[in-house]
């Protein structure tokens, strides 16, 4: 009997263990992708540090918790006594966002239900593209619509002196938020497995019963996430509300009152303040406040939408 021939006496063959081109490309891509992945975190921390630093002087100096949150007087340039109360600004933002949601929620839910449950084939594709197109319209264009189209309509229809008010901005912001909410809500509805629909249909549920009793409950987390994203959008929107609210400091008592939003205040005033002044720093403190609010809203939305995927 012959023994099988051996390549080397020790049996070690390390020729496959080479750091070749593929190996280096793989490593390089890994590093690049990693950097891309963490860049978002770096940026968000950077932004937070920056606005905190700018607002810090105010927070430790002139900042008066009670005045800041509970005074409706925002008089940063008063000669006798500067006051930095954001209550009216918060009320402005909240009223506009609230009205916007009243308009956007039914619209976007209706649109999402139609696209996901009723429309089919070409209609569906066409609607989806249209909705996405709508979401991409720049906010300044919406602001322009508020200023040039909505304003005279409101003045004439309701016989009020000014058409730049909560109603105008609420409608504009509602129309702005609706497309993105529709898109997310539609995703949530599409994520409901078809076998749920089939099971309900087989039981004799009508189409509306299938949606109302089965699909909506199954998608409720995703739908709530969509609404919260809309709210976040409302809070953060600047240009359109600056143009459509009338930009006057007011705690609104009706939808025909002009108001001013937190974001719009920063946008309008920051360019005219001396860097480092109390006013400048107070604006950054508003920035911190907005940052925290939107962060909480987005985080809540995200956690809720995630919850849906797991369940």
């Amino acid at each position, binding site marked *: 009997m012959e023994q099988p021939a051996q390549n080397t006496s020790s049996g070690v063959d390390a020729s496959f263990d080479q750091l070749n081109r593929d190996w280096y490309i793989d490593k390089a891509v890994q590093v690049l992708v990693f950097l891309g992945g963490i860049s978002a975190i770096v940026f968000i921390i950077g932004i937070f540090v920056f606005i905190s630093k700018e607002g810090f002087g105010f927070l430790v100096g002139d900042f008066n918790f009670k005045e800041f949150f509970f005074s409706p007087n925002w008089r940063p340039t008063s000669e006798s006594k500067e006051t930095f109360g954001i209550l009216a600004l918060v009320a402005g933002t909240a009223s506009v966002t609230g009205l916007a949601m009243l308009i956007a929620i039914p619209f976007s839910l209706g649109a999402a239900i139609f696209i996901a449950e009723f429309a089919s084939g070409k209609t569906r594709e066409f609607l989806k593209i249209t909705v996405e197109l709508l979401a991409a319209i720049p906010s300044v264009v919406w602001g322009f619509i508020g200023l040039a189209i909505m304003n005279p309509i409101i003045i004439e229809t309701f016989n009020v002196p000014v058409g730049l008010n909560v109603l105008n901005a609420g409608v504009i912001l509602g129309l702005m938020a609706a497309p993105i909410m529709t898109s997310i809500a539609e995703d949530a509805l599409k994520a409901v497995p078809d076998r749920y629909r089939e*099971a309900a249909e*087989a*039981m004799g549920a009508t189409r509306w019963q299938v949606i109302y009793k089965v699909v909506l409950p199954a998608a409720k987390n995703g739908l709530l996430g969509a609404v919260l994203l809309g709210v976040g959008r409302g809070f953060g929107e600047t240009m359109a509300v600056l143009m459509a609210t009338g930009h006057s400091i007011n705690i609104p008592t009706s939808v025909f009152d002009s108001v001013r939003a937190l974001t719009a205040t920063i946008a309008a005033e920051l360019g005219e303040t001396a860097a480092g002044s109390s006013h400048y720093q107070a604006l950054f403190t508003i920035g911190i406040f907005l940052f925290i609010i939107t962060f909480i809203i987005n985080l809540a939305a995200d956690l809720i939408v995630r919850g849906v995927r797991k369940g």
Partner: protein
Amino acid sequence: MVKLGVKDLSISYAGERVLEGVNFDIQEHEIFGIIGPANAGKTSFLKAINRMDMFNTEMTVDGEIRFNNVDVSKIRNVYGLRRRIGVVFPLPVGLPLSIYDNVALAPRLGGQKDKAELDIIVERCLTRAALWDEVKDRLDSLGSMLSGGQQQRLTIARALSQDPEMLMLDEFSIAVDPVTTMRIEDVLKELRSEVTIILVTNLVQQARRLADRTAFFLGGRCVEVGVTEDLFTGEVQDQRTRDYVEGRFG
């Protein structure tokens, strides 16, 4: 009495025939088995019966299916038809509702609002589906969180909750363990006195255990219909039936 009459039935998807030449009557209170390998057209047949083709524009049904001697293709209110026919799908579908709401859904769709009445229905159906003892203390928990076998029994309870005149089971035991399968089979035997049952199964022995008569579907045709026992003792028209029940193919 004939519960379901089928005449010259054929079904196509997007122009492609998946089933043709189906002719038989299903008697009231019988268990009618349908056996056959995959792609024989068994599930399509069930879909045609309760008009699930309605939302599927690709699916066309020709021929005649009469339920209670009413042509189902001419029915205006298909929801009414479906409420008379309970369906159990191959894979369990626990709806993401509580166990209670899963079973109470169909009665509620039918307009039942009385809580006491619903309680009775829920308990009766879960008991019949051999699930009551396992879930009676947690009726509020999610139906979709039950195990596969439990979900399938939940599905059966749900199908029974609408007090169907006919029950269609499509390979119900695929995701169920053998012990549970036997318990459900016992339930089906009891139900025979009240309900007409169509049992689609890929287990020929299950058909033998339960079905009074059995049809053999093969490659989109109904090859044979006969008294179940005849199929198994070799008294068949078609050689392929014998080969199939004896396990020589499929």
